[in-house]
């Protein structure tokens, strides 16, 4: 059978670095092909070339046997190729219907025909089995709902091929599951899907075929299930990695962070817990369960609604991140690009910003000391870069995350808070981050992290707190940690009763 889309010998360079080298890929009708690989392996570039956002230097693309070339995303849309982006491209101030119809609104007398627009949007949403009202503002939707809007938008162009770039990175476990179910339904409607993801479990579950990229070349292909995890990892990193997490037990000291009767927001229930020096505690729960708010209020990035925080036995009052940093608390925030880094800046300036901010004393910057601190961060965190002056924007996701860690660790904190520490980070860099967390804990840091990936919580936490509806529903020790145990506590009470 003729494939829906066939790309032959695609190559692409940005400046002096070749991102894709002679890559060929075909996708059949109603087939889900997963594309895996480390950050920087060329996955995003390949998918953007197929979507017409980036033009290849050489190579051909044919659609149902006819050669095509797209110079603008619009043209690939018309040809039936749609991309659902990693960072969702929806306008928050518009309604669902306006977003879905953006750029091709039905018109009457030159005006937008809002009735027809609503019908069009409702149809598109119904096709996805969603009951969202088209007149709702996108700003009021959750990440998962926004993604549905984006998918509905792309599908309403009669797309035959959907390209998903890390679609589940901002979704909770159960939302991710329903997305995967939706993908399978679309497949049975004959829609072809290119699925780009770091999450191997999802790849295993949804794919018909898996293709791996490494350093811009196809490094392996598994044409049919089962897709054994170890083989997938081997295709990605080019060597065998036995255990991604490498959990190391260690001794623990006195309580470093104590939180009592603490309420992050008025809708949170008061919670009390402690993290001991050398301990790694995970917070699990669905998105919207209040995990991020809890971390951010401990860090002073938002004003807590009540309660007290004690650091190494001393009560502290924290009303801003600046004060938290002085008290020895630091946070690796949820969004690297928006909260963690100044993307245009060099590795040096980013790494030193927090340290300079808490040093208050010196009136002058000490470039020599800044250089030493940066060099140390690059070495200990194994940041792969051209040099300390490289802008962090041009680093891969994993290396950017290491720069955030470097900035946080430069202040020599006693308590390390992390929100989604490995979101958008490839398998190799993940391992390095986990191993770093273990060695930090061995040196006596208290670590508290939030993660949407149950596997990650189970893999590295000594203990997990499970949140739901702004409340800590339970605590699980390492021996009792399992996906089942976490999900049983994480489901909101209303839904659990149903």
């Amino acid at each position, binding site marked *: 059978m003729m494939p829906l889309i066939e790309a032959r010998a695609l190559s692409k360079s940005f400046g002096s670095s070749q991102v894709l080298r002679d890559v060929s890929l075909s996708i059949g009708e109603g087939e889900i092909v997963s594309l895996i690989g480390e950050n920087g392996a060329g996955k995003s570039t390949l998918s953007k070339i197929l979507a017409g956002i980036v033009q290849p230097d050489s190579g051909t693309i044919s659609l149902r046997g006819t050669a095509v070339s797209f110079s603008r995303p619009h043209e690939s849309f018309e040809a039936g190729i749609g991309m659902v982006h990693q960072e969702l491209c929806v306008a928050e101030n518009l309604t669902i219907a306006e977003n879905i119809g953006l750029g091709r609104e039905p018109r009457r007398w030159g005006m937008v025909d809002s009735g027809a627009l609503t019908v069009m949007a409702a149809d598109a949403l119904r096709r996805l089995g969603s009951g969202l009202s088209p007149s709702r503002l996108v700003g009021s939707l959750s990440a998962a709902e926004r993604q549905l809007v984006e998918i509905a938008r792309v599908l309403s162009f009669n797309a035959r091929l959907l390209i998903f770039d890390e679609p589940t990175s901002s979704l909770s476990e159960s939302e991710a599951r329903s997305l995967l179910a939706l993908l399978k339904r679309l497949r049975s409607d004959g829609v072809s899907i290119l699925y780009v993801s770091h999450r191997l479990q999802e790849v295993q579950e949804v794919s018909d075929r898996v293709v791996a990229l490494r350093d811009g070349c196809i490094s392996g292909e598994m044409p049919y299930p089962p897709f054994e995890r170890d083989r997938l990892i081997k295709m990605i990193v080019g060597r065998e990695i036995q255990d991604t997490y490498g959990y190391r037990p260690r001794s623990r000291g006195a309580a470093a962070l104590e939180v009592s009767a603490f309420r992050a927001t008025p809708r949170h229930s008061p919670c009390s817990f402690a993290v001991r020096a050398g301990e790694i505690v995970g917070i699990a729960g669905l998105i919207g369960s209040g995990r991020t708010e809890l971390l951010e209020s401990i860090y002073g990035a938002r004003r807590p609604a009540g309660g007290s925080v004690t650091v190494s036995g001393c009560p502290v009052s924290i009303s801003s991140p600046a004060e*938290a940093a*002085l008290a020895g608390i630091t946070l690796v925030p949820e969004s690297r690009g928006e909260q963690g*880094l*100044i993307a*245009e*800046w060099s590795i040096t300036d980013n790494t030193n*910003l927090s340290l300079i*901010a808490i040093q208050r004393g*010196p009136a*002058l910057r000490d470039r020599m000391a800044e250089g030493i601190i940066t060099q140390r961060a690059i070495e200990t965190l194994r940041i792969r870069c051209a040099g300390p002056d490289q802008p962090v924007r041009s680093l891969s996701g994993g290396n950017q995350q290491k720069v955030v860690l470097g900035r946080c660790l430069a202040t020599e904190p006693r308590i390390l808070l992390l929100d989604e520490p490995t979101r958008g980070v490839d398998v190799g860099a993940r391992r390095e981050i986990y191993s770093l967390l273990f060695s930090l804990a061995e040196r006596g840091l208290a670590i508290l992290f939030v993660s949407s990936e149950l596997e990650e919580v189970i893999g590295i936490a000594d203990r997990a707190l499970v949140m739901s509806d702004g409340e800590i529903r339970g605590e699980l020790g390492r021996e009792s940690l399992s996906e089942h145990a976490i999900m049983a506590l994480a489901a909101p009470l209303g839904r659990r009763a149903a």
Partner: protein
Amino acid sequence: MRKNVGLVILLAVACAVTYLLNDRFLAPANIENLLRRTALFSLISIGVSFVIASGGIDLSIGSVVCLVGTLLPWLTVQFGWSWPVALTALLALAAALGLLHGILVTKLRLQPFIVTLCGLLLYRGIARGLTGDQTQGFGMEFEGLRSLVTSAYSLFGLLPFQIPSVALITLVVALLAGFVMAKTPFGLYLRAVGRNEVAARYSGVDTDRVKIWAYLACSLLAGFGGVLFILDVNSAQPSDFGNFYELYAIAAAVLGGCSLKGGESSIVGVIIGATLMQVLRNAIVLVDIPTQLEFAIIGGVILSGAAAEELIRRAAAARK
């Protein structure tokens, strides 16, 4: 530095064209006058470059110049305050206005555009009200104080023209400002806040304090500029003194490489930008263009310069 190449070329072209059309452009008296005007406008442009680097804007500069500039002769001549007291009080007033802008922007989270636009209206209104809209000036008095600004030095005859004292004052301020931006943590914070305020806050920078200081520095320099402007011209009308100065200052800062999106600034660029504005104004007089066309000429030249620079930048990016 490389960013300013286009601006330097534009400045050189403007100077060359003016000189070809009227060779009095390079006469010692004209150069001295040009230096004086450039120095005065550079001062307020440096001030606003701090605010722009932090991602904000200050539209009240011209009115602060007017308020401080007209109240100095008002207090000293009409009320007999001694000049050091009046000077100190007015500079403190200017700093307090900047502090107020900063607090309203950070703590009350008002938009900088609104806060300083209202400042623009308020301070001019106050100046006109207090002085009864009457021309304020020193007349024949305060010769000593005025000579601080109007005097010029020949630098031991090394140059064919004299260097006005205000140019030296501005040079000191510019060196100080450049030093602050390049060498101190404050400069780093300012650029961090302008680039990505959220990330700066999450990194432990006290972003509110940084922004408040930027507004304070801007108003203080505007007030100081007001003092120098009034000493330079001797008398001024509250209804038009300092009109549009904020726009000259913002234009100079933006020409000099400050992005209105924040995060970038170059003191050298700001001064070159201010110089270009003054050369254009000077050219209009020397080349006998009707002064009514002044704004049109300045607007046209800057717009074509900005468009040319963007086109060159794109061409360069495409070649890479």
